[in-house]
């Protein structure tokens, strides 16, 4: 089904462009306003720590509910039924790790980046280098997923003839995200995320209500129709359609599950959000709000995904995008009255504009996280050994943001066949393998050492990225990045099952192997600061 060829293509395109331009204009206005209030490093990196728990909860939700959640999960459920639902559950449960173990101590003991916490007790130059590198790698994986989502949307709206347009849109997305970050800093980015969270929840709620209304508010009826229309029958509602084929695919499911639940608390763009509130208590409140908002959203993905299966049908979805990334906008068109109808065109336009807003807000958060880590960790504290002023550090962060924007534009142009949710799951696996072990050990294990941190970060990073390179995601599969080549020695699409335990193991072994004496005084300082908030910035 080629939507661009259908009758209403012209009007919905104009409407989308109008809505999207309004969003960009408003958010850029906010960004300029926020930029005027951004004076020092605390403003630029942490929004002046002036946000309330509720505001930050909304912003966290806006940062977290990405194209992967909105487009990817809806598509995964629409195509694979129940198996797609695992993403929603893992992405939500993961917040408890952040709530119970990470958010408050991080807020109490750090200033701008994850490495700030590690630098309290470990040798700061090697540790900041490692943490900076892993932050940038995780963020680029995540950025890639968002760009794939953007590409899928453009292809849907403009049709196959829109290859040139697809590139231009990706360039535009990259450009706007760089503007948000360089002009507005964290304050501007936070407000963009808040606006986007409200729009996304409203849009999803609207579609959910329309879908449930079609099935008399009966979940069982909706599921029945989805199963019938999927062509898979009852199997559509049971586990195993995507991951149940054989022993390897089942292991892949476990691997994915592990990466999802342990990844969130190691994601750099999530971690830096905890610095935008004044106290650890406010950080806790913001995570609780985020759990409520994100949980409500993921519950609605049931209606989006099964609704798309029931009302659009898997054939039409795969014809539009083979990984299902366009299921949500297609569903919007269907509940609005179908292709060619005015209602359908309006809803398609609204939901597509919301999806673009989603992508923009998330890429801005990712760009900020990675450029902050580059400027604060790698540049100011490692390369310049702490001899920089704040002005130079912020300027470096802005230049880094431009470079990262360029990288993600280039990647987005090349990768477009993968499912956005599966791609983001890779970012989760890298975060859970490289960042989470070191963060937890630093906060809670007295005998942890610099060598443990370096083994864990580099070991987790290299193993997870290498396993992805040699997995069916990159080669040997028709949907792979390089379908023509074949070097898929590692059978699992997600590396978490191997690389996460490895990251934890290496942190422990490295500490045991480190002959440098543990300095108990430094751990005492970190522990007291992280639990009491004494001396918190």
């Amino acid at each position, binding site marked *: 089904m080629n939507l661009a060829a259908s009758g209403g293509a012209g009007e919905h395109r104009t409407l989308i462009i109008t809505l999207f331009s309004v969003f960009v204009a408003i958010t850029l206005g906010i960004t300029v306003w926020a930029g005027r209030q951004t004076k020092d490093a605390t403003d630029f990196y942490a929004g002046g720590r002036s946000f309330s728990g509720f505001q930050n909860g909304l912003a966290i939700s806006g940062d977290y509910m990405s194209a992967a959640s909105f487009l990817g999960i809806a598509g995964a459920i629409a195509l694979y039924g129940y198996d797609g639902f695992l993403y929603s559950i893992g992405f939500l449960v993961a917040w*408890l790790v952040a709530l119970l173990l990470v958010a408050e101590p991080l807020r109490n003991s750090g*200033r701008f980046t994850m490495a700030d916490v590690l630098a309290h007790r470990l040798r700061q130059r090697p540790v900041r280098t490692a943490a900076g590198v892993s932050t940038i790698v995780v963020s680029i994986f995540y950025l890639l997923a968002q760009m794939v989502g953007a590409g899928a949307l453009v292809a849907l709206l403009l049709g196959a003839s829109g290859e040139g347009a697809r590139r231009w849109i990706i360039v535009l997305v990259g450009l706007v995200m760089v503007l948000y970050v360089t002009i507005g800093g964290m304050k501007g980015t936070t407000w963009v995320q808040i606006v986007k969270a409200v729009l996304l929840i409203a849009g999803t709620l609207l579609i959910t209500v329309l879908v449930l209304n079609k099935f008399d508010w009966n979940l069982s009826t909706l599921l029945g129709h989805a199963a019938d229309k999927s062509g898979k029958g009852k199997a559509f509602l049971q586990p195993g359609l995507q991951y149940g084929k054989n022993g390897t695919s089942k292991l892949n499911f476990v691997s994915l599950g592990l990466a999802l639940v342990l990844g969130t608390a190691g994601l750099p763009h999530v971690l830096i959000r905890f610095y935008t509130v004044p106290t650890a208590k406010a950080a*806790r409140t913001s995570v*609780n709000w985020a759990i409520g908002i994100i949980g409500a959203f993921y519950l609605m993905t049931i209606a989006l995904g099964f609704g798309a299966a029931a009302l659009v049908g898997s054939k039409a979805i795969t014809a539009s995008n083979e990984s299902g990334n366009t299921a949500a906008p297609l569903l919007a068109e269907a509940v609005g009255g179908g292709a060619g109808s005015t209602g359908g065109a309006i809803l398609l336009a609204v939901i597509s504009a919301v999806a673009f807003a989603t992508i923009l807000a998330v890429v801005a958060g990712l760009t900020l996280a990675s450029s902050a880590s580059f400027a604060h960790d790698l540049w100011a504290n490692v390369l310049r050994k702490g001899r920089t002023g704040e002005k130079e550090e912020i300027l470096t962060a802005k230049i880094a943001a431009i470079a990262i924007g360029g990288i993600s534009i280039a990647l987005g142009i090349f990768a477009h066949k993968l499912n956005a949710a599966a791609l983001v799951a890779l970012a989760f696996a890298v975060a859970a393998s490289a960042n989470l072990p070191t963060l937890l050990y630093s906060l809670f294990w007295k005998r942890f050492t610099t060598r443990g941190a370096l083994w864990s970060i580099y070991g987790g990073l290299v193993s997870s990225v290498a396993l992805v390179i040699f997995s069916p995601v990159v080669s040997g599969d028709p949907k792979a990045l390089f379908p023509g080549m074949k070097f898929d020695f590692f059978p699992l699409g997600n590396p978490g099952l191997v690389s996460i335990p490895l990251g934890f193991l290496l942190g422990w072994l490295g500490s045991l192997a480190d002959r440098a004496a543990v300095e108990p005084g430094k751990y005492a300082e970190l522990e*007291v600061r992280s639990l*009491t908030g*004494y001396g918190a910035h």
Partner: protein
Amino acid sequence: MDPEEAVDRNSPPETAPGQTTPEQTAEAVRPSIPAQPDRFTEVQTGAEFAQLRRAHRSFAFPVTAAFIAWYLLYVLLSNYAGGFMSTELVGNINVALVLGLAQFLTTFLIAWWYARHAATQIDPRAEAIRARMEAGE
């Protein structure tokens, strides 16, 4: 914001000249060892801090182990107990969907429970220690 602070995270903070406690005067004799870490060790080894640590860890560690185990059980059941998970309970709603929704419910409940625990057991202890440390500066 003091730009010097961005320079070295490990330098002892908040040691304004002229503010001297007995400990710090003693430390001044051995300038190579910063005064603050000793104070942190003193607090960290105290009974009050042990209570605070226990209030956090005795909740956070077992609950984390429990919800991760419960989540992994759900993943493993989906994988290896397809028959059980496919049992239909009401109409097209099967065990797998109900357990998935139960994951949402337990997540909400644990978040609420932790907020309550932290407000009564953790925050007052943390605030008391922090206030005393700030007063002792």
